[in-house]
């Protein structure tokens, strides 16, 4: 340590250059850091989508989902496989362990996908991976509007897909643009079955003819007069007349054209989703996903630039406008933190000037801030931590602590300079002063870093949310440690002067007036407590008692809700609803909300799903994005919570739909997270839906009967009506028809089939073959579809099959290759552990599961138990490390214990702070407590070191206590005031994102007040019992 300081003082230029380099590097890193609103809490997830035209959930599961799942089994670092088989869509979610490289994961998945492709029957769809993005990746939504009102939904979607999307997709950092709404144009061949009969043509004939008459061909080249001509043949159908003139067959030289048996029109694709706007009607919207790891603000800015360009080339009257983007939120969040940071800097500067009473030492101390921040930015860039509310918040919290080391050092240098002999070279004095305090400084800063270690072991959402905070804070503290040990001595030697007057007269009269005033107050008080340690103990215990009493009255909450500034309302309708009725219901809801809440400026809703890649929702669910006016213009409510409550109330009476109010980013993130939100989830696994359903009913009853059960809810798995056509094999046998032939009629006639594409330039549109609507619209009409028998007979479908209306599954969800159903509940009034034990016993007694079925208990409680286990290991370990650090600093068990006493003393103030400001215990406040412990320990160390020093110098115990306390009053107050006041802006802030940091800041400030007070009063009083006898003996000159 001494050598380090000596070395630094010798090579001052080198040190200064190094410092300049770090500052420059920090600035460069700061410019380059990706900026987000919040830390990304999404899991490492690879999604596999398979679109299958018209298949019911059961078939999707059997033929598509299952093969995909099976092929993915056993991938390295794969945590869990979950899947949803929906109508026409299979989604398999592969959750990897945190820390797995997303590109590597995708690579592995892609290899296995080959295998999956082979086991999916032909024509059942092709598996594709979802976009390389996360829940935070939905950075911008835009709306395509037609001001003329003359364009059809097809026109709009065509503009969207081929002008807007096409051009936005190439923006750097955009990984996917997903369109929704309007109608995807296709060329529909609407076949009249009567005419098929008349001309003796079958549907497969038409399909073949369409495919055989719509092609271009290349035929190498010919040489003509030494020139080479490429030969190409053009036979692509380009428009409706081309299609209509396709010849299906020729009878006696008379051709039968397609138009004789079918009508060819352009129409909209069968859709699984649509978008509506402002209760006015349907709209075309798009969603932009950014690539993982790119800079949100930059991508949004370039997307917006591109959109201006696109707007210039769009047809007259059509405009594309973003209606939601994260940029505003990012800007607001960063602004909130930066504002707190700036204000904190100002406050810290003022404190330093007041306490030190001189400009030069203050400059040395304050230089610690830019250096530590720059150091932190360098490391953030290196570690890939983005700049966001949390990571910048960590810096803001650390700000007051960053000066700690240098304060202590500079204070010591100043004192020593004042007291030193005038002929001693300044640099020697500095070296001496620095060496004296270097060790305690190092240890105290290390302790602050170490107490943050448990935060790094947090898992899941909380872990991902608060880890950046702990990381940046630890990194910045480490930076300040380097500054204190390397740069402070150098800067002190360069900048600090010996006091001009009073040289050689060591005395307190030269101390700054503020400090003198405080000493005048403090000295008698501390003297009193040192004389009467019982009073100190009583004071301590009394405060602890108050703290304990308040603690029981504190409420608790999860992470306080961040105000994103916009709302997202989820609408869930009856599972049997049709897409048109779903649209009408959502439009009614939009109209109602806009009429009742004038603060709503725009509502854009997504009904069902658009292009695959982000959502897999069925048509009975919708998500309404609600844009709000700035909060100060609200009339229905003052706060977000109030507004949400009002809206909830108003929507409660809305018939036929369930609403849940949340915010865009939290909704997107929720969607990607696994697991249930309830405290407890009982999952019943097994093969048969019906058995699962009845057993789940029984389970719900048993669980509901256990004392403490609340909000028992089971998954609704059925409710989607199906028209089930079950072939009668006997009838088929009599006519000599194969099942396949019947199903082909069903598939093509009712569902339709793609038969090639029409190209318009690079735009391509499907040719879709299907019966005309009037032949397939009702169950009765379907029963009359004719199937050709080998003998030439035309047999109606209801002769060959039974057609029944049944209720089928809404969607089939699976986990780890098994179907399951969840019964979830919360537990009130008792602890979850005993509830689970009771529940397991009750289920074992009362429920007889058929073979192949089993129950699994999970939910939040499981994660909690895991986390508790982990913390049960990590916290004692941390304490051990803290203790070891203390012990190696003091070489004394007693001293270390005395310093640990600071922790409970600090708790009291934090609790009181929360109580006084009406806040709850929450994750951020817990983080505040942890930060507080570090600071409190550091303060204690400073004081105890000084007391030890005095004792070593042979000062009697009682006097040492009082004098030491007075000597250390200034550094202790300075560090505490810096740390505390540095957080004041954050505690008072009301900007976006301040919700999360306010409790944290409150705890630290409150805790610092009590802890400082008690450190200064109680520790000197108790010191006599904790003084290390051996240390004082060995160093006592009178007892060598």
């Amino acid at each position, binding site marked *: 340590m001494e050598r380090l300081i000596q070395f630094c003082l010798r090579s001052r230029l080198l040190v200064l250059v190094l410092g300049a380099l770090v500052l420059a590097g920090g600035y460069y890193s700061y410019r380059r850091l990706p900026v987000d609103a919040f830390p990304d809490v999404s899991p490492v997830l690879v999604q596999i989508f398979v679109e299958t035209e018209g298949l019911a959930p059961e078939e999707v599961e059997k033929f598509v989902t299952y093969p995909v799942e099976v092929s993915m089994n056993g991938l390295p670092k794969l945590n869990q496989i979950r899947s949803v088989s929906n109508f026409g869509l299979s989604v398999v979610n592969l959750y990897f362990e945190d820390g797995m490289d997303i590109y590597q994961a995708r690579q592995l998945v892609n290899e296995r996908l080959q295998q999956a492709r082979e086991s999916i029957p032909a024509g059942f769809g092709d598996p594709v991976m979802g976009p390389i993005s996360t829940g935070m990746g939905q950075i911008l939504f835009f709306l395509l509007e037609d001001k003329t009102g003359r364009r059809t939904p097809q026109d709009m979607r065509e503009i969207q897909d081929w002008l807007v999307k096409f051009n936005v997709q190439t923006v750097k950092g955009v990984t996917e643009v997903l369109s929704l709404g309007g109608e995807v144009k296709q060329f529909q061949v609407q076949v009249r079955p009567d005419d098929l009969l008349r001309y003796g043509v079958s549907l497969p004939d038409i399909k073949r003819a369409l495919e055989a008459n719509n092609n271009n061909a290349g035929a190498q080249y010919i040489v003509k007069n030494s020139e080479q001509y490429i030969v190409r043949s053009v036979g692509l159908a380009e428009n409706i007349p081309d299609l209509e003139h396709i010849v299906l067959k020729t009878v006696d030289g008379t051709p039968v054209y397609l138009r004789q048996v079918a009508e060819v029109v352009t129409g909209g694709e069968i859709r699984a989703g649509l978008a509506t706007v402002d209760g006015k009607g349907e709209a075309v919207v798009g969603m932009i996903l950014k690539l993982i790891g790119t800079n949100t603000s930059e991508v949004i800015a370039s997307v917006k630039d591109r959109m201006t360009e696109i707007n210039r080339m769009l047809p007259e009257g059509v405009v594309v406008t973003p209606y939601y983007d994260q940029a505003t939120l990012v800007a607001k969040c960063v602004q909130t933190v930066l504002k707190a940071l700036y204000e904190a800097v100002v406050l810290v500067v003022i404190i330093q000037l007041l306490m030190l009473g001189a400009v030069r030492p203050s400059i040395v101390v304050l230089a610690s801030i830019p250096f530590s921040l720059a150091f932190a930015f360098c490391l953030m860039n290196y570690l890939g931590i983005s700049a966001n509310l949390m990571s910048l918040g960590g810096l803001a919290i650390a700000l007051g602590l960053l000066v700690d080391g240098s304060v202590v050092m500079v204070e010591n240098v100043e004192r020593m300079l004042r007291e030193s002999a005038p002929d001693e070279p300044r640099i020697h004095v500095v070296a001496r002063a620095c060496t004296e305090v270097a060790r305690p400084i190092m240890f105290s800063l290390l302790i602050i870093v170490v107490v943050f270690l448990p935060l790094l072991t947090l898992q899941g959402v909380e872990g991902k949310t608060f880890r950046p905070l702990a990381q940046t804070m630890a990194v910045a503290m480490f930076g300040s440690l380097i500054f204190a040990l390397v740069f402070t001595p150098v800067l002190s030697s360069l900048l600090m002067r010996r006091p001009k007057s009073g040289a050689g007269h060591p005395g307190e009269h030269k101390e700054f007036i503020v400090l003198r005033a405080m000493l005048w107050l403090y000295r008698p008080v501390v003297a009193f407590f040192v004389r009467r340690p019982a009073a100190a103990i009583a004071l301590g215990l009394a405060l602890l008692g108050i703290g*304990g009493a308040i603690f029981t009255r504190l409420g608790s909450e999860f992470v306080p809700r961040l105000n994103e500034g916009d709302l997202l309302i989820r609408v869930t309708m009856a599972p049997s*609803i049709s897409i048109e009725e779903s649209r009408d219901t959502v439009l009614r809801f939009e109209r109602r909300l806009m009429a009742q809440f004038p603060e709503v400026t725009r509502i854009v809703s997504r009904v069902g799903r658009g292009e695959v890649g982000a959502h897999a929702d069925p048509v009975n669910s919708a998500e309404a994005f609600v844009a709000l006016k700035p909060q100060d213009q609200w009339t229905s409510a003052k706060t977000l919570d109030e507004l949400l409550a009002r809206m909830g109330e108003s929507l409660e009476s809305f*018939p036929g739909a369930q609403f849940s109010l949340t915010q865009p980013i939290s909704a997107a993130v*929720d969607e990607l997270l696994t697991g249930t939100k309830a405290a407890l989830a009982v999952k019943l696994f097994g093969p048969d839906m019906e058995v699962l359903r009845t057993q789940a009913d029984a389970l719900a009853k048993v669980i509901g009967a256990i004392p403490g059960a609340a909000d028992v809810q089971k*998954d609704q798995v059925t409710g989607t009506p199906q028209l089930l056509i079950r072939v009668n094999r006997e009838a088929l046998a009599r006519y000599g028809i194969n099942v396949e032939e019947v199903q082909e009629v069903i598939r093509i006639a009712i569902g339709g089939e793609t038969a090639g594409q029409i190209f318009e330039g690079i735009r391509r549109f499907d040719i879709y073959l299907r019966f005309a609507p009037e032949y397939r619209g009702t169950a009765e009409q379907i029963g009359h579809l004719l199937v050709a028998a080998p003998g030439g*007979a035309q047999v109606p479908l209801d002769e060959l099959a039974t057609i029944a209306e049944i209720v089928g599954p809404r969607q089939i*969800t699976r986990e780890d290759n098994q179907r399951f159903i969840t019964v979830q509940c919360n537990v009130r009034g008792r602890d979850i552990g005993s509830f689970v034990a009771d529940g397991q016993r009750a289920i074992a007694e009362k429920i007889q599961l058929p073979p192949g079925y089993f129950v699994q208990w999970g939910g939040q409680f499981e994660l909690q138990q895991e986390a508790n286990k982990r913390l049960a290991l990590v916290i004692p370990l941390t304490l051990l490390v803290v203790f070891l650090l203390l012990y190696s600093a003091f070489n004394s068990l007693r001293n270390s214990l005395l310093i640990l006493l600071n922790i*409970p003393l600090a708790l009291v103030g934090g609790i009181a702070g929360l109580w006084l400001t009406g806040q709850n215990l929450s994750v951020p406040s817990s983080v505040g407590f942890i930060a507080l412990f570090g600071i409190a320990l550091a303060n204690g160390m400073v004081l105890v070191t000084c007391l030890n020093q005095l004792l070593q110098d042979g000062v009697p115990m009682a006097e040492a206590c009082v004098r030491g306390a007075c000597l250390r009053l200034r550094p202790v107050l300075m560090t505490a005031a810096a740390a505390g006041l540095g957080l004041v802006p954050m505690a008072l802030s009301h900007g976006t994102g301040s919700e999360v940091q306010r409790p944290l800041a409150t705890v630290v400030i409150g805790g610092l007040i009590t802890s400082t007070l008690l450190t200064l009063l109680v520790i000197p009083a108790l010191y006599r019992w904790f003084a290390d006898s051996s240390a004082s003996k060995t160093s006592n000159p009178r007892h060598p």
Partner: protein
Amino acid sequence: MNKHTLITAVAALAWFTGFGILSPNRTLAAPHADEHGADEAQPGAHGDEIVRLDAATLKEFGIETGQAGPGQLRTEVQVPGEVRLNESGVAHIVPRFPGVVTAVHRKLGDTVKAGEVLATIESNDSLVTYELKSLVDGTVINRHIALGEVLETGSEPFVVADLGSVWVDFSVYQKDIGLIREGQAVTITAPHGLGSATATISYLGPTMSESTRTALARVVLPNADRKWLPGLFVTGRVVVDETTYPVVIPQSAVQVFEERESVFVQTKDGFVPRPVKLGRRDSAAVEVIEGLERGEIFAATGAFHLKATLLKGSLGDGHNH
């Protein structure tokens, strides 16, 4: 991982430092303070299945009521058919003796009377000319004759048919045979808006075709304006039953609720789902055998929204996680 853990962590820290005021045994409210909304209000709770909506909402959602009363149900069977010549009015005009055609007086499509001369032929044997005369009033629908042609006996130079009426032959599938009887009315519709007509079944074939496994049902259709072209495919709808029942409601009023077919009946408090036993039905209406009394008011349209409202509590979160 949630606040429990952190509080436990804090408590543990405190505990390890010999400070035990933070006991981890505090019971905390359920996590996830994020879900607002109507979750708490579940109108679908059992025993209280009633939907109360004000008049404006009823109108907004297109919910209209009807009064249960008697109604007529028409049970129909749809049969595919084909327009054919009325064979009783068809005459084949053939030469008695082989000979050379010396004159042709009528061309295809001409309307002719019975006895009208169609062509003149000179017999090969006797070199006597004789005339081919129409046997019936009708239209020349087939002509295979040219001047100078030698007609053999057995050739068929003219077919004259009376198109004033046509046959429509329907194929009756096995499942419908029990329902179709002679004398039943059939509504015949031609495709492409070519017209429709009503007639009665005049003949039901006693056997089934071996190749098509269908039975023949025939209708004789007047065809004064010649719009029923033989060869045209048509669809017939046979009303096999037409009875009035005491309580008949539109099918749109019936909703499957809790796995039972139900009707939403208006009481003074609101709409209540009532399970019903349904009887016969036609394409639009259905007979209620049990569950709905004459005179009761029920939701005739928009009943789906009433059902959906009752289901609200159980909808949960339809999103995928």
